[in-house]
């Protein structure tokens, strides 16, 4: 079966996951995001590329940053953006996901940006559209369950490339709750595809997936050991709700072992950058001195996220 993300010519038609996406497609997205990033510095932060197109934000799970940056990206491309408040919509009245999609396509939707608690929901929508011949309608996965968050992975890759230029030769550490993190999964797939020689995951046994080493990464349970010689440190949010599941003793205990402090960061390379997908739990996975420090590129990540989403949407919306 063909990769449902690609059309017959290998062009990107949906963005569902970075897993299995060819390196040249990823590089083209990153390259295309560069001129879009420069648009943010203009007085008129808008180009007419998607004028007349309708982008529907379908968020079945709450999100502020991702939904807002998708909305800004679509608006800077001159598309019309419709935000659906799913919690108060017909899903609660029993409508199925695909019926909701069909109704929105009947309203001439051109693109869906989908966040869903269930892994595979965006894939289901994309294959439904492909199967029913509506290939002019595109799907962007904005995070599905524990599966993938490809635009976050891409903006992480864009940020790393911006500061470090080349992936070959880099040591990148992903620290924290990898088990529940679709951000980590997408980033690791992207890093591997682009030829990053050393990807490490650092975290307690209970927060690392059983098959994590099958993703081609090196596993560390000792954070100090894992940070040694790193060029890039990606901190993950410790999802507070995990604390209840007896996976961890306490936030204080977690910070002691896996919180990024200036003292632990000193073990990484002197020019190492610190990233975090947000929202941050200060004092849980990251010390404020690091989050606000000169090696933090956490806010540039947010800015770059808009450019990367503009690149993805404009590539999908072509013929």
């Amino acid at each position, binding site marked *: 079966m063909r990769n449902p993300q690609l059309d017959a010519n290998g062009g990107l038609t949906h963005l569902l996951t970075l897993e299995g996406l060819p390196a040249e497609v990823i590089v083209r997205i990153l390259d295309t995001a*560069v001129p879009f990033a420069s648009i943010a510095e203009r*007085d*008129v932060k808008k*180009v*007419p*590329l998607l004028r007349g197109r309708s982008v529907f934000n379908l968020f079945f799970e709450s999100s502020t940053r991702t939904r807002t940056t998708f909305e800004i990206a679509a608006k800077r491309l001159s598309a019309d953006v419709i935000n659906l408040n799913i919690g108060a919509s017909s899903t609660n009245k029993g409508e199925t996901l695909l019926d909701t999609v069909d109704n929105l396509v009947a309203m001439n939707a051109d693109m869906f940006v989908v966040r869903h608690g269930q892994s595979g929901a965006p894939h289901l929508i994309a294959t439904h559209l492909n199967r029913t011949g509506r290939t002019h309608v595109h799907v962007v996965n904005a995070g599905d369950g524990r599966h993938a968050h490809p635009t976050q992975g891409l903006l992480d890759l864009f940020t790393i490339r911006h500061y470090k230029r080349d992936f070959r030769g880099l040591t990148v550490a992903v620290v924290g709750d990898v088990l529940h993190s679709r951000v980590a999964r997408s980033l690791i797939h992207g890093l591997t595809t682009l030829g990053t020689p050393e990807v490490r995951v650092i975290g307690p046994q209970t927060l690392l997936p059983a098959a994590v080493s099958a993703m081609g990464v090196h596993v560390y349970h000792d954070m100090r050991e894992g940070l040694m010689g790193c060029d890039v440190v990606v901190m993950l949010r410790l999802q507070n709700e995990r604390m209840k599941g007896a996976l961890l003793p306490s936030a204080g205990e977690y910070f002691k072992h896996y919180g990024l402090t200036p003292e632990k960061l000193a073990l990484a390379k002197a020019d190492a950058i610190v990233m975090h997908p947000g929202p941050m739990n200060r004092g849980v996975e990251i010390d404020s001195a690091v989050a606000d420090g000169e090696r933090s590129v956490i806010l540039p990540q947010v800015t770059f996220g808009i450019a990367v989403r503009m690149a993805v949407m404009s590539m999908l919306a*072509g013929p």
Partner: protein
Amino acid sequence: MTLPDAELTLTALAERMRGAVAFDAKFVGIYSGGAWIAERLARMIPGEHPVGYIDVSFYRDDFARTGLKPAVKCTDLPFQVEGATIVLVDDVLYTGRSVRAAINELFDFGRPACIELAVLIDRGGRELPVEPTYTGARLAVARDLTVALSRDADGALALAIERAAGGRDA
């Protein structure tokens, strides 16, 4: 068909612009051929002529048909567009669609006092009411052919005729 020599045509274009172009006109080259010519003209024509660059990919009218080309470059205008005299520079003027897109993009940076257009080659075939202010040479070229400008390692310009790959674009 015999093509004019690119360097001689550039000299002829500069000759026509000398004395006619405002002393403080800003030169804006349309990527990629127009950018090379804008850089050369800025050195050949007396006055203070800062050079900017425009990539019209985000403003083209054929996006729905052809999509976004790879390797879009950053538009870079290192001066105030508001109130400026701008000379838009392109290598080959054909349909006028790139010039239309470039003018639209310029206006997103401000309201110029005046925009002029300088082209190395005018090959006719306009689909929009666009006329160059300064022209290096005029050339009649069949519709299925493309006139392409190239630049070698030493910066020397050359013209060539190629079989058109897709539709019309310049």
